[in-house]
């Protein structure tokens, strides 16, 4: 049944997805950033992926384009998952927002923006959600110093 569902997705997205693969029971689609909205709309409307699970990113400092933006979707009818990956460069890490398709994307994109600095074109509320106002940088990027702190309360002087 899972194979049949994946086959339908493959057929529907034959012209869009650059590569498809099955990894640990999840169908993986690799697409261009420009194809994102069309792909996700097809997944939602035609293939039944009605639940947006998460969006996150992967930082490959040595690679160009540097970031993978990774989406996961779930079908509550067929109980299958699909992963959509797209690549954006460090100079302009921008993808389209999914807020018009899935309202929950508003918050998940804020977290991804916090942690990786991915910009979501069309999401008008990218304030920090897990970090705080005034935090500089994006802590889950590989070039963020591992132990760098940005305290909000000044530290006490150590006792002599």
């Amino acid at each position: 049944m899972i194979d049949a569902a994946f086959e339908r997705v493959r057929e529907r997205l034959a012209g869009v997805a650059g590569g498809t693969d099955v990894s640990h029971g999840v169908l993986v689609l690799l697409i261009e950033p420009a194809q994102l909205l069309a792909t996700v709309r097809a997944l939602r409307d035609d293939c039944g992926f009605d639940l947006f699970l998460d969006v996150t990113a992967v930082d490959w400092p040595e690679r160009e384009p540097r970031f993978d933006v990774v989406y996961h979707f779930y079908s509550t009818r067929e109980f299958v998952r699909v992963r959509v990956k797209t690549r954006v460069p460090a100079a302009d890490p921008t993808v389209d927002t999914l807020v018009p398709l899935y309202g929950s994307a508003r918050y998940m994109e804020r977290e991804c923006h916090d942690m990786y600095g991915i910009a979501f074109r069309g999401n008008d509320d990218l304030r920090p959600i897990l970090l705080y106002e005034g935090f500089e940088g994006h802590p889950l990027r590989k070039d963020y110093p591992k132990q760098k702190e940005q305290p909000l309360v000044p530290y006490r002087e150590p006792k002599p």
Partner: protein
Amino acid sequence: MTTQPARTAPSGAFEFLTTKKDEFVGWARKFSLFPYPFVTACCAMEFMSVSSTLYDTDRFGAALPRFTPRQSDLLMVVGTVTHKQAPILRKVYEQMCEPKWVIAFGVCATSGGFYQNYAALPGIDKIIPVDLYIPGCPPRPEMVIDGIMKLQDRIAGDRHPIVNEKF
């Protein structure tokens, strides 16, 4: 019905005692610790365990949690404190009246533990003074009880100025 004679001291009975003011106030204070649990993380499970029946911190007069800092005199910081929470912890501490004591419960509150990163405060003593550290991840209830008793010993042996510049 016979009338009882007025109660007078039988010979040899315990009727008065002499002590020193600091010892007397310290004795009173060490058995009336009102903790404010600033509980943020998994150490809370161990805190519940040590508070409830089996270990029962009530035996030490330190069981009645006050959920406002203004009514408490023992701040128990239980669990990881993040940089985002640090201003809140600082404000809670500042709202407590003198005299007040602080326990860092667990290794995260003590030093940040294994969180050495952008998010976690590396020990609450970076922002507020701490009287007692209880290490462990989480600490055993026996360690917590030992810690409370050590704090009580300290309170009992402390100076307790009743009138000073602070209150």
